[in-house]
């Protein structure tokens, strides 16, 4: 063949469905629930390369738990999980609404992705550490972190543990295994590997979990995390939440139109698994498998959760400008809360009545807590933390120049 062809053109991936188009997920391959076998935790990464191209699923269409990933949780656990997801969804709805009412500046919800953080939290042990993004509030809810403290942070009120310094939802909760969220994408993925390395250096038994969105896997820090995790077989679980969108940008821009995010692990020799992110049981089983692998010193696991961002990116975003309004409804993996509810009903451990009752209880609990938080204060109502708090905590001991500036500021 001659070396000269047609003039080159730039390939820019584009999603199949934009506003006005009809979403069509028929090309989206979804393996049957139970189809992907559960390998032993000491499996060689190379022997499960196919798992990066399939999807681990436990719940089938009829709500039954099938295959050898099933059985990691009791009915009590599952009811607790359902309650966590319902609580997170209600919490999100109330807080998004509070933002709309001007009680805070900004909000981001986990709508449609609740199973991932809520189930993952139950696969860790006390003392383990998450390095979350802004879309894993379920880690806190499922770790019984007080909702009141979360709301105080969201409202930047006088009881905000971060003293009004951080934007809403950028929580920090060390005692609950939740590293301070920075807001800069990707930076914390690699830090999770460092935390895990530290556990190994110290002869400890704790593990770390890194979190990143599909879009953010493009950042250099994702690749830095992979190479360090691989080189030092760090005891870390590296989680990619593929919710299909990064603000207005579809996942193909970060992924390059071919392969999967999970398959990125192969180049680093890291065990890589894709899992149905809207299947609470599958998320839990895979997270448990990866956590055990890490804790046994068998190395890192890269997990891609296949899910869908059912809401806007944030309270500042209107997705109708860039994606079809029908897309969330057409998403073939369903809704995580509905699916777990159906499962519990199908095994005789739940009912529509109990569900409705739980919903009402949760709403009343969240509203009660919200009233308590609002009694302390909301953003802009004049009951904010002191400006002194801005100067505190930059350093352990305030250097003279900051003392001077604080005095100039009059606080």
């Amino acid at each position, binding site marked *: 063949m001659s070396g000269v062809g047609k003039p080159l053109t*730039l390939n820019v991936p584009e999603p199949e469905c934009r506003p006005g188009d009809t979403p069509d997920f028929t090309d989206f391959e979804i393996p049957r629930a139970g189809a992907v076998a559960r390998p032993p935790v000491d499996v060689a990464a190379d022997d499960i390369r196919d798992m990066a191209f399939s999807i681990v699923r436990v719940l089938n269409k009829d709500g039954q738990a099938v295959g050898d990933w099933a059985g990691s949780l009791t009915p009590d656990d599952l009811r607790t999980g359902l309650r966590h997801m319902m609580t997170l969804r209600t919490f999100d709805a109330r807080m998004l609404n509070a933002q709309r009412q001007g009680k805070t500046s*900004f909000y981001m919800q986990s709508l449609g992705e609740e199973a991932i953080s809520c189930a993952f939290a139950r696969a860790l042990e006390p003392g383990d550490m998450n390095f979350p993004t802004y879309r894993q509030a379920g880690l806190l809810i499922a770790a019984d972190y007080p909702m009141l403290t979360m709301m105080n942070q969201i409202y930047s009120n006088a009881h905000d543990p971060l003293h009004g310094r951080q934007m809403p939802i950028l929580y920090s909760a060390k005692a609950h295994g939740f590293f301070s969220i920075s807001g*800069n994408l990707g930076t914390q993925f690699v830090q999770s590997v460092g935390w895990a390395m530290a556990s190994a250096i110290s002869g400890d038994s704790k593990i770390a979990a890194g979190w990143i969105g599909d879009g953010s896997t493009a950042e250099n820090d994702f690749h830095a995390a992979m190479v360090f995790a691989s080189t030092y077989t760090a005891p870390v679980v590296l989680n990619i939440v593929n919710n299909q969108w990064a603000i207005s940008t579809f996942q193909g821009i*970060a992924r390059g139109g071919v392969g999967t995010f999970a398959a990125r692990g192969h180049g680093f020799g890291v065990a890589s698994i894709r899992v149905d992110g809207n299947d609470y049981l599958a998320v839990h089983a895979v997270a448990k498998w990866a956590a055990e692998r890490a804790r046994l010193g068998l190395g890192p696991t890269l997990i891609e959760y296949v899910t869908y961002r059912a809401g806007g990116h944030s309270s500042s975003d209107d997705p109708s*400008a860039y994606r079809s309004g029908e897309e969330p409804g057409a998403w073939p993996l369903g809704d995580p809360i509905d699916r777990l509810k159906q499962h519990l009903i199908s095994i005789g451990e739940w009912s529509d009545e109990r569900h409705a009752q739980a919903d009402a209880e949760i709403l009343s609990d969240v509203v009660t807590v919200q009233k308590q938080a609002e009694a302390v204060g909301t*953003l802009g109502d004049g009951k904010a933390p002191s*400006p002194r708090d801005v100067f505190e905590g930059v350093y352990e001991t305030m250097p003279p120049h900051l003392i001077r500036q604080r005095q100039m500021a009059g*606080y």
Partner: protein
Amino acid sequence: MTMIEAIRDAHDVAMGGDNRVVVYGEDVGFFGGVFRCTAGLQEKYGRSRCFDAPINESGIVGTAIGMAAYGLKPVIEIQFADYVYPAYDQIVSEAARLRHRSNGDFTCPIVIRMPTGGGIFGGQTHSQSPEAIFTHVSGLKVVIPSNPVDAKGLLLASIADPDPVIFLEPKRLYNGPFDGHHDRPLTTWKKHALGAVPEGDEIVPLGKAKITRDGADVTVLAYGTMVYVAETAAKESGVDAEVIDLRSLLPLDLETIAASVKKTGRCVIVHEATRTCGFGAELMSLVQEECFYSLEAPIIRVTGWDTPYPHAQEWQYFPGPARVGEALKQVMEE
């Protein structure tokens, strides 16, 4: 026109006039940017001239340098100035030095746009003013408009410039001139003279400051969001202050600055960025070097504090008209 529309218009004029101009960044293509500064460009010029980038600031700048080496003129967006740090190596070690180290064999005519400054309750990751980490680097130009007319003209000049330009867009001014009184109703560019953006491809040259308010007693050096704050402070404090909008920090219009300070004998410098090693420190040195014998009082800086930009205490951090006004009165007492 809003400043957003003026920036969009500048892109349009530049892309229409020169097919070497390509535009990309996070959410920049189909959606037109989170602030909508590039809306409509992909539709008009096609996907290979305006497109979405992966979330990788280092990659965005690195590829732009490669494109510039080929002969294109990339105009790229960093979604917020707070997210530019992953690209700092590409900017400092590569873009800024390419011409010098290759003796002109390769050059780097790129424009790196980024929204800057606070006042939108963006906390520490949507409020920063990092101009001084760029003015500190030899080989970069640093531009910051304060109104739609300048935004268009300066962006066109930056795109035409043969060297890398950091183009900072004060996001608090995108939709209207903001006087620093956050508790008063917003005003828009519609009724403002500088919202009347001329059609066409007229540039505003880099390195030319603008006196936006004449005064006899003290010179106020400001840029970006602080221009209106300074004007408001002058009005409200009753001090007869001359306000200079620097517009470009590098190259800097030292001539206009020195002439004004020599006339007034006093100088107040205002910026939103942190204080230590902020651009105000450079301005102070220059004014001292150029105007020492004309100075009747020590130069005063009004700046953001040396802390991360806070969320809830935003207006205690922001150097608003009250603080600037106090500085004006203080400098007059000497």
